[in-house]
């Protein structure tokens, strides 16, 4: 079961710690906001992703199971 990283753009305040801790999936745009690579996380990256989510001061970063968002 793979996981993905997602950001809540409303609570994100461009602190940028996520990009420091998970540069494999997160880059910052011109204004400091995260650009997320939605590729699934391999197990090695999962721990780093969780750490990045924990470090976010506003809880904007989420680690989600693939396909956990219900349709429609």
């Amino acid at each position, binding site marked *: 079961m793979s996981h993905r990283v997602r950001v809540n753009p409303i*609570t994100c305040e461009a602190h940028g*710690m996520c990009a420091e801790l998970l540069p494999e999936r997160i880059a910052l745009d011109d204004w400091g906001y995260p650009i997320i690579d939605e590729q699934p996380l391999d197990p090695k990256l999962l721990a780093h992703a969780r750490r990045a989510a924990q*470090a976010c*001061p506003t*809880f904007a970063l989420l680690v989600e199971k693939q396909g956990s968002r219900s349709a429609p």
Partner: protein
Amino acid sequence: MSFPLAGAGPSVYWYMTRSTGAVALLLLTVSLALGVIDVRRLQSPRWPRFVIDGLHRNASLLALVFLVLHILTSVLDSFAPISLTAAFVPFLDSYRPFWLGLGTVAFDLMLAVILTSVLRQRVGYRVWRATHWLAYASWPIALLHGFGTGSDAKTTWLLALSVGCLLVVLAAVLARVLPGWPRDAARRGLALGGAAIFSLGLVLWLPSGPLGHEWARRSGTPAALLGHPSSSSSSTSGSGR
């Protein structure tokens, strides 16, 4: 390990309570300064944000460890009658009740800040953020507690340490409050005013207070403990109480 009350030198707990108290003050100062650096998003390539943030959290936790030691050793020390309850409920005990109680208040505030931070994901962002402001209240109360209860108030090392920490905290408050002026001018003005009044008040009070005559008696040391040869108001070396 305890030493008999009269005649013998101070117990090791008494030394520990003073030293851990001083270190806790230092660590709390460091934590507050790092917190301001954190919220101001200052960073450099060698000091990324997550490092500053991690240091801030670790300094706070380390301060907590020293505080716990500070409280335990003061309870265990048989000189002054301090109960464990006094660690959580202020102004109960008979030894310098007001000044000791301030320490309890500062500790309670710190506990609230640390607990909400550890349980941040449970309590939610808003509760965490609102509680965190209490840190700015906890620090000056802790400093006053140190001046009021500590028998080393007049020693150069502790005075220098306290004043140095105060200057660091003042600088941190300025760094926190000034950027973004004049947005929210009322709140910022209040913060600056509070810091100024506190510092000025402290400077005016110290000479006639803890640095003045017979502070031990005036601060509420029980009469039974006064008159002990080492309870005189001057204590430059470590042998006084």
